[in-house]
């Protein structure tokens, strides 16, 4: 079992290497979806744990859609938990809005040259635009466009049909084109 946790012999890729290569991107996606750094870290950790525990023996070619599917589910769980907490807090008379969590800013404290500043501004605009999208459109765009998954893998990760993926992606691109007009 230890061997299967570490390496998938049929494809030779280590699951450790797979996770090492995907963890930062997963964190950024989770951070955009949850607008909260700690929740994003929790979601990524849970997704990694679940992938290792349940799917390490799968062919490595399946790890990517499986991982994104697990992460998406985890993000959904966290958002649902926030809503419940928000309701409970509302009943107790607090005026805090727990649904949105703390005010989120794209994390990049490192000062850099002008092109880094430009990248940071571009990412800030992109993340804001993505957060304004409906959830399914945002997920489709993140997986299909930013992660480069094909339609079939995106559909697997999202748990929907390939036609739905195409529709969500197209609508997301239309919306982002309008919202990011400043880029042109």
């Amino acid at each position: 079992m230890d061997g299967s946790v570490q390496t998938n012999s049929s494809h030779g890729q280590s699951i450790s290497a797979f996770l090492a290569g995907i963890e930062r991107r997963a964190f950024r996606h989770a951070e955009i979806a949850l607008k909260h750094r700690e929740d994003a870290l929790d979601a990524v950790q849970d997704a990694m744990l679940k992938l290792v525990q349940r799917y390490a023996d799968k062919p490595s070619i399946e790890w990517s859609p499986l991982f994104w599917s697990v992460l998406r589910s985890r993000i959904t769980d966290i958002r649902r938990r926030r809503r419940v907490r928000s309701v409970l807090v509302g009943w107790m008379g607090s005026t805090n809005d727990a649904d949105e969590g703390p005010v989120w800013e794209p994390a990049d404290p490192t000062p850099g040259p002008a092109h880094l500043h430009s990248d940071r501004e571009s990412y800030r605009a992109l993340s804001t635009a993505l957060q304004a999208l409906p959830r399914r459109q945002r997920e489709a765009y993140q997986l299909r466009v930013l992660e480069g998954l094909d339609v079939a893998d995106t559909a697997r990760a999202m748990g929907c049909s390939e036609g739905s993926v195409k529709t969500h992606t197209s609508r997301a691109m239309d919306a982002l084109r309008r919202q990011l007009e400043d880029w042109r």
Partner: protein
Amino acid sequence: MNANDIETTLRARAAFNASVDSIDADTRRRLRESRLQAQHGAQRRARWIWPAGAALTAALVLVVLLPRTPHVPVATAPTTMTTIAQPAIATTTTRTRGDIASIADITAPDPVNVDAIEAADPDMLSDIEFYGWLAKQPNANASGD
């Protein structure tokens, strides 16, 4: 996909990739720790899941077998006595040919002890031989009725 979409897509990818590359050191460290914990957690689970599964299986086997254990001596003793002490009943009641054969197997004379049995009780030996012969007869089941 038109030119505007291509431009937007390329720039979005570039911005996202740059943000991934610029993740701060503390977040990178925590992600690395999370990955190691996930792997070690899975290995810990793999280590204890087999002993736990074996223990659970053993417990289930015990639960299934324990209530039946007291029946074993109670059921065995009378059965043995019946097969040895009541062969005549077996041949005159509804016992099947299989029952008679099994009784004959159980009561078949041990070749080693034939002399001892004959010396102790010649009639017993003849009875045993009779039941052995009876078990081999094709109409054994019906003949006694």
